[in-house]
């Protein structure tokens, strides 16, 4: 078996850790979740010489080993547990050359756990702009480590780093600081009580906040030593931090020279505009406008290609496969359903690209700074802005992005209101319904359909903000809200990093949605083509008019309709119809709504399956547009099913209802209880029902 080396990438947030990860592993990486939590676990493989493989773990960014969030806790838990299967053979501490002092605090802590370390000083290309000079051999000696200068602009350093990794057993693993320096009395006492244990490790365990950590602290309870109160512990932690800064300062005084006069910073100038109390907000609005412009204008070009591609695949299947229900399932159910999702890939990719660029550039933190006060009025944190914006793409990553919100109440409210934001899964439904019921006409250069679509986004946003306001009043929770946020340097995002994010997210979107659509299409198709009872088995007996008066085509159409109505799905649909009747929907739309509770985007595929089974078509390979079939749908009395009233009612239902199992699952994970997803589901669906009911009754 070839040799494997486990490497942990550790560092402060915003140090370009992920770029180093990407450079070492290329696309040779996979993302999974840590068991039990939704923190992303990124692992990649880096090939070294002589068949040796290094497993690189990109750990979440952290400022220290005192975890104050779930992300940070992952790092602490891994480093404290020697028996963990991913326990690293060595750690690469990634630091930002401009913030070396602060970054070294974490470095010295990891070193004190006796893990062999390499210090990667990243963004070294900025040294000359900042007037920074480093005496590397002095630093290597006094920090007792190997140092490598890295930059995201070139890859010249990767071979050197790979060499260092291969020879990790030559790396020093001595402690940096004697913990007794923090508080001699306390630590002597601690050592006396637990002579077997490593003193610093013990101290890190004691410091962990019980809210986040699963680190086992039980062994402390029975022990005969004085357990300090939380405030005393905090004082000790403060002492530790001060001590570390002192030692680091002493080293940097000789190992680092900073000539402020040589520093050129455009960051300060950019901040003057981007965080300005007027221009800052103007710029933010422009960015948002640009984002929507890109999503709705630029994305239409590739979307048209995808649309015609899927149309021709469907046509091809119909011509080349024997006609029958199976082919219909494949062509109209599965392929159309999946095409209904793939068509949104350009939009989703654009959205993730924008969000990734905004984050990587450091601009998102400025938005948080600008919006914090306003968001607080609604019971949210400035940090809620980023998840809310991401919610326009998909609620799932958005909910995961709430993890850096310090206050639990603010975080919970953000999680609860995110699903109101118009996610991309609503788009397929919106587009088809808007095209059906809203006239494609312009008044004063504004298209009605565009206005309708924009209104739906605004409705979603207002619903989110307004319910946050109500939740803030209702939820009786102690709120200790703080905001401590780094404002990172502005950076030009690397195309490579952005691309990786976009590919990764888009891929998982298609795969996840594809699975659900496939499963639901097959179940639906089965339920719609099977049934019991005489009406299903002998539909010709129940045709309304004399058979002789009908053409073959008319006869088949009517028989298909009778069969569908008496199939399993028809029976289910008829049973639930009374619930949806007041909203203006027939049983087929009702079935569409029910299946949408798995995922909203299934709606289009569901209708495609149902309408295609019903609409007998003998012209093989003829392209039938779902939109046209829907437009012709009538009830028994010949009234159109999709009218302005029922259409708007349907749009509003989708705007408010909680129809996404994956979101509910993620909310359960993040809030660690079924209570919140259950409340979210019931309240949102109730609101959807009531609003749609009122809308339909008023308009019709």
């Amino acid at each position: 078996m070839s040799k494997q080396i486990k490497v942990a990438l550790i560092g402060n947030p915003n140090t370009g850790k992920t770029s180093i990860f990407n450079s070492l592993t290329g696309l040779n990486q996979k993302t999974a979740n840590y068991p039990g939590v939704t923190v992303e676990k990124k692992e990649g493989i880096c090939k070294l010489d002589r068949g040796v493989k290094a497993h690189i773990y990109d750990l979440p960014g952290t400022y220290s080993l005192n975890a104050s969030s779930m992300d940070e806790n992952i790092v602490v838990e891994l480093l404290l547990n020697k028996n963990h299967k991913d326990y690293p053979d060595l750690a690469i501490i990634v630091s930002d050359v401009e913030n070396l002092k602060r970054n070294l605090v974490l470095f010295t802590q990891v070193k004190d756990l006796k893990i062999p370390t390499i210090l990667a000083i990243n963004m070294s290309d900025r040294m000359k702009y900042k007037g920074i000079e480093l005496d590397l051999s002095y630093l290597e000696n006094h920090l007792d480590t190997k140092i490598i200068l890295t930059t995201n602009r070139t890859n010249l350093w990767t071979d050197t780093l790979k060499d260092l990794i291969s020879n990790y057993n030559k790396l020093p693993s001595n402690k940096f600081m004697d913990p007794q320096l923090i508080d001699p009395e306390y630590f002597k006492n601690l050592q006396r009580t637990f002579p077997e244990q490593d003193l610093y490790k013990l101290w890190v365990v004691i410091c962990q906040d019980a809210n986040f950590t699963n680190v086992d602290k039980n062994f402390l309870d029975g022990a005969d030593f004085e357990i300090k109160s939380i405030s005393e512990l905090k004082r000790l932690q403060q002492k530790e931090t001060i001590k570390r800064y002192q030692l680091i300062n002493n080293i940097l005084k000789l190992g680092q020279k900073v000539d402020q006069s040589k520093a050129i910073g455009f960051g300060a100038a950019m901040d003057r505009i981007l965080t300005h109390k007027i221009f800052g907000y103007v710029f933010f609005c422009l960015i948002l406008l640009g984002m929507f412009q890109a999503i709705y204008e630029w994305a239409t070009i590739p979307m048209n290609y995808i649309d015609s591609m899927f149309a021709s695949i469907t046509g091809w299947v119909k011509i080349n496969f024997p006609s029958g229900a199976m082919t219909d399932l494949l062509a109209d159910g599965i392929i159309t359903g999946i095409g209904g999702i793939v068509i949104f890939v350009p939009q989703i990719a654009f959205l993730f690209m924008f969000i990734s660029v905004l984050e990587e550039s450091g601009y998102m933190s400025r938005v948080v700074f600008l919006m914090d006060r306003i968001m607080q009025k609604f019971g949210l944190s400035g940090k809620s802005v980023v998840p809310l914006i991401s919610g326009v793409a998909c609620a799932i990553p958005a909910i995961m992005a709430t993890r850096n919100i310090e206050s639990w109440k603010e975080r919970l409210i953000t999680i609860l209101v995110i699903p109101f934001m118009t996610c991309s899964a609503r788009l397929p439904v919106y587009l088809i319904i808007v095209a059906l019921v809203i006239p494609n006409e312009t008044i004063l250069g504004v298209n009605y359909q565009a206005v309708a679509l924009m209104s739906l986004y605004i409705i979603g946003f207002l619903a989110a903000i307004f319910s946050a306001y109500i939740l803030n009043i209702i939820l009786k929770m102690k709120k200790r809200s703080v905001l401590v946020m780094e404002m990172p340097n502005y950076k030009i995002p690397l195309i490579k990093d952005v691309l990786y994010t976009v590919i990764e997210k888009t891929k998982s979107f298609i795969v996840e949605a594809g699975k659900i659509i496939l499963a639901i299409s097959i179940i639906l198709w089965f339920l719609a083509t099977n049934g019991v009872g005489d009406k299903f088995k002998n539909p010709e007996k129940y045709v309304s008019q004399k058979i002789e008066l009908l053409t073959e085509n008319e006869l088949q159409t009517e028989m298909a309709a009778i069969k569908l109505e008496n199939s399993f799905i028809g029976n289910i649909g008829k049973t639930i119809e009374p619930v949806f009747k007041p909203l203006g929907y027939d049983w087929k739309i009702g079935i569409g709504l029910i299946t949408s509770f798995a995922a909203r985007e299934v709606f289009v595929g569901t209708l495609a399956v149902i309408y295609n089974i019903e609409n007998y078509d003998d012209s093989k390979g003829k392209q039938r547009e779902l939109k046209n079939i829907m437009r012709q749908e009538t009830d028994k009395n010949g009234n159109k099913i999709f009218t302005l009233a029922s259409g708007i009612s349907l749009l509003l239902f989708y705007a408010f209802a909680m129809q996404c199992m994956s979101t509910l699952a993620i909310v359960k994970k993040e809030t660690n209880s079924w209570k919140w997803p259950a409340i979210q589901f019931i309240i949102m669906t109730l609101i959807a029902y009531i609003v749609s009911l009122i809308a339909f009754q008023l308009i019709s």
Partner: protein
Amino acid sequence: MHSIADLKKGEKAIIKDVSANNIPIKLLEMGCLPGNEVEVIQLAPLLGPMYININGSHLAIRKETAKLIIIDKLINNE
């Protein structure tokens, strides 16, 4: 006694005392420690957060937190 919350945009001061009990440890780790220099870079409107530079770390904190960081002397900054 002044705190960071009393500083205006562009003003600098030296941190004198930090009430460790109520302040997130994270802030200390980011360099908010006695003896370090602090400069106010930007203030968000309507009593929003403060954008400060402590010891080379650029941070945003709310006014309530800023009140807990006692500063010593104001360095005249033109």
